[in-house]
C-alpha cells in the first residue's frame, strides 16, 4: 500500500504539473482539493482519467470522485479495492 501511495503522489505531481511540490511534501491524509493541495475541478477530470488509464477503474458516477479523491489515503484504498 505504501508503494501505491508513493506512486500516486508521483503521478499526481507529474500529470497535474505541480512544479513546486515534491512527493515528500504531500502527507497521506492531506486534502487534495481546497485548502490542501489546492486541486480544482479540471484536476478532478485528470484524476478520473488517470484511474481509468493506469488502474483500469472506471468511475460510473463522477460524484463518487468527491470521496475517492479526498486524500492519497482514500485514493489508494479505493484503487486497492477495485483494481482490475
Amino acid at each position: 500500500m505504501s508503494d501505491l501511495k508513493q506512486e500516486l503522489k508521483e503521478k499526481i505531481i507529474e500529470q497535474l504539473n505541480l512544479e513546486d511540490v515534491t512527493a515528500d511534501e504531500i502527507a497521506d491524509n492531506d486534502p487534495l482539493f481546497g485548502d490542501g493541495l489546492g486541486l480544482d475541478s479540471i484536476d478532478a477530470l485528470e484524476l478520473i482519467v488517470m484511474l481509468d488509464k493506469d488502474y483500469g477503474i472506471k468511475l460510473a458516477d463522477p460524484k463518487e470522485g468527491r470521496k475517492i479523491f479526498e486524500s492519497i489515503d482514500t485514493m489508494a484504498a479505493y484503487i486497492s479495492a477495485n483494481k482490475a
Partner: protein
Amino acid sequence: MKKEVYINSIGSVSVQKTFNNSEFLNEIVDYEGISVKAVDPNYKEYIPPAAARRMAKGIKMSAVSSQNAMKEAGLENVDAIIVGTGLGCLGDSEKFVRDLLDNDEQYLTPTKFIQSSHNTVAGSIALDMGCKGYNFTYVHSNISFESSLWDAKLQLANNEAENILVGAVDEVVDHHVITHQFIEHIKKEPVSMRDVLNSGTKGIVFGEGSHFFVLSNKRQQSTYSKLLDMGIYNTLSNDEVSETIRHFVEKNGVSIKDLDGVILGNNGDLEHDTIYHELGTSLFLEIPQLVYKHLSGEYDTASGFAFWMANKIFKTGKVPEILRWNNVQIDRPKRLLLYNQYRGKNHSLVLLEKC
C-alpha cells in the same frame, strides 16, 4: 478628425533578454541550432504557480510581456486587447493530438484542449485584468501582428478606443520544427546566431517570442513613438516591391532618403532574402539598414521584435552594432521604416516616428 496613434509602452520576452524594460540588448544571447527558445524570465514574479502549471509557453511569455507593457503605461485596464499569432499555442494542440493518437482516442483530458486554441492568449490576459472590452486574435501568418496593429490603429484614429493592448506571440513547437525542416523551410543543419543571416542555405532558424504594446490616441510621459502609417500586401511580385515601398513612403510626405533607417526582415533563407538584398543595393542603398532576425529567430510574429526594437532605439537613442547591416552612419534616428515579408509573401510596412 482622425486622431494620432502613439506607442505608449512596450513589453517583450524573446530569444534575447528583452523582458527587462530598463535594458536594451546589453548582453547578446548566442545560440547554435535550427530552432531557438526564448530566455525565460522568472515567471513566478508574474503568474501565480497554480495558474502557471496549466499555461502553455506562449501564454506565460505573454503574461510577462503584457504585464510589463501595462505597468509602463501606468494602466490597470484597456479598452481592447488585440493579439496577432501565427500558430497560437500549438504546443498544447500537438500534445492533445498526440494523446489522441497514443491512447486510441480514449482517456482525453481537457487541460491541453482548453489552452490549445489561437485566442487563448488574448482571453487569458483579459480574464487576468478583468477586461470586458473588445478581444480579438488575428491569425494571418506573418502579418498577424500587423493585422492587430492595423485594427488598433483604426479604432484609435477614429476615437472608438483610447488605450489598446496589442500583442504578437508565437512559440517553438517540436513537431512543427520537424515538419518544416522536412520541407526545407527550416534549415537542415544547425547554424549559429552570428552566421545565420549569411548562411547561404535554404530555410530559417525558428524562434519564439511575445511582444506587447499599449497603443493610445493620447500622448503621455512614457510615449515612445507615433505610428505614422502602415501597409499590408499579401501578394507582390519581386518587381513590384521597390515601387510599392517608395509609393508608401511618399504618400506620407517623405522620400526614402528622409528616413533615418530601415529595419529589414532578413532571416538567412537563401531563396527569399534576395528581396532584401536587392532593396539594400538599390532603394535603401544610401540609408542605414538594420536587421534583427539573427537575434530573434524567425516566426510568424517576429516583426513584433522589430517593433519593440525600433521603439527601444527611439527611447535610448542607441543602435547596437549587432543590428547594423550596412555601413551608413546612423545616429539617434527619429523616423524608421519596418519592412518584412516571409517567403516572398505577406509584405508589411510600418512607419514610426520618435516622440
